């Protein structure tokens, strides 16, 4: 335990960095994934904007990028990060790459959850003269809100997982902390301290997600 005490300020900083990376990635990746997911959903045959070519392109795009292991993607996308956020290393680079990778994964989750919306309610909205954009905003998204919240909760936990490799490109956070001060210094207690913080965080996120989803289901 004694070896952990002097590292506590560093643990606090690492926790803050993880929260920072995950939160911003959730915002950027979440919005990107929502847009991409809506694209996948609405261009499906029989959906609101059925469009075979666009649907095919989006599907290929998602299928190509989604299976790449994140640690490889992080390295491979470094030139792109340098281009977009100006640096190839550090927290900004990791947030950019994480958001990008997450967007592809989230898009599938969004698509699947939107597909649970009964076609009948969309038909009902169309029958009263609602436009397709209005239907997306006032029927499709609200009807799928419960499953979407659970989907995004899952994503938040996955982002926490993925953010742990930030150290590879000089980013901080709990992953970097555990490797640098725990693993490399042969201090398992330090590693486990990081693990416990992550467990607490994930539990809190999941509880919050479940609570919000329950509220959405019962509205």
């Amino acid at each position, binding site marked *: 335990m004694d070896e952990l005490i002097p590292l506590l300020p560093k643990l606090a900083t690492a926790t803050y960095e993880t929260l920072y990376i995950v939160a911003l990635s959730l915002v950027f990746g979440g919005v990107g994934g929502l847009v991409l997911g809506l694209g996948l959903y609405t261009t499906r045959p029989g959906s609101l904007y059925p469009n075979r070519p666009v649907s095919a392109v989006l599907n290929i795009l998602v299928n190509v990028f989604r299976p790449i292991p994140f640690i490889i993607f992080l390295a491979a996308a470094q030139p792109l990060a340098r281009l977009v956020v100006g640096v190839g290393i550090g927290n900004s680079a990791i947030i950019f790459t994480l958001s990008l990778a997450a967007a592809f994964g989230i898009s599938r989750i969004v698509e699947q959850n939107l597909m649970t919306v009964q076609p*009948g309610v969309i038909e*009902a*909205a169309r*029958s*009263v003269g609602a436009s397709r954009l209005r239907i997306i905003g006032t*029927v499709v998204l609200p009807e799928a809100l419960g499953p979407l919240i659970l989907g995004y909760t899952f994503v938040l936990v996955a982002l926490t997982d993925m953010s742990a490799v930030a150290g590879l490109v000089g980013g901080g956070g709990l992953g970097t902390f555990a490797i640098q001060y725990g693993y490399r210094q042969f201090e398992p207690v330090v590693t486990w301290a990081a693990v416990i913080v992550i467990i607490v965080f994930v539990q809190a996120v999941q509880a919050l997600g479940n609570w919000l989803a329950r509220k959405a289901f*019962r509205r």
Partner: protein
Amino acid sequence: MPLVSLRDVRKTFPSATRGAPPVTAVDGVDLDIEAGEVFGIVGYSGAGKSTLMRLVNGLEPVTSGSITVGGTELNGLPERELRRLRIGIGMIFQQFNLFTSKTVRGNVSYPLRVAGTPRTEIDRRVDELLGFVGLADKAGSHPEQLSGGQKQRVGIARALATSPRLLLADEATSALDPETTHEVLGLLKRVNEELGVTMIVITHEMDVVQTLADKVAVMDGGRVVEQGDVFDVFSAPQQPSSRRFVSTVVRGVPSADEQAVLRARHPGRLVTLSFHDAGSTQAEVFSALSRAGLGFELVFGGVNDIRGRVFGHLTLALTGPDAVVEQALGTLPDGVTVTRLPNGDVRG
């Protein structure tokens, strides 16, 4: 001028399997629906009824032909105009299709918000509608807290929100139990009679046609095979396919299988007497048979009442000498059609 008019309307869908010919769902339909009437469309599932209905509010574009609603031609109308038209056409569904994420009030107010009705007016109108369908106390409830009948009443209130002239009902009572069906049909009848809303009602239930419809069209294979007054079509269908459909909802002349069962069970000559719109002739028939000294037993059939007009098909097993039977059948009053069922081995 009819409120809804269809001329040679066709709708084909591309086949699900590549290379196969397209599927024709509606095949050259002509219909006129007058303002204020309730028009029933009956037929087996897959006959094209639902597709036809979805053409009337432009949810599906026609492949060819002309549909006018209130004088507006739908064929080729841009989406924007179609949406405006749909505000004036209500629609209710078999599965109700309520928005589960919205309260009853949210569901009923939705069409009004789409139509751009001012907020204060929306609240007033929703209260009025919920009062009309008898759910004034459920405004804050969510659909999953309601029974099937209540859900459909919300569906009806939602469909009527914008005061449409035309209401489309697609198997609106098929998911409900008999008692609830009765209640919802009563409500729809009020919608027609008190609010003067014209209705197109798709159904395979005799009850619905009997209670609501003024006219009926029988669909089979995408075509309207017969249409006319409900009483005429159901009491004396002219076309083979409409006869086949009517026989599934009205007990008419027994089928060959049913005849075999009846013959095995009842000695005597089997005849079906069809009464057409004349309740009193039944008494005359029975007294004529008694006078002839024939024994008779009612073995099959039923009597139907469509808006106070009665028709029915009664199959009797007559016992007595053949000559007397024939003579008695010859003296039956007009308005009774006699169908002699082929005799089996059993002789009376």
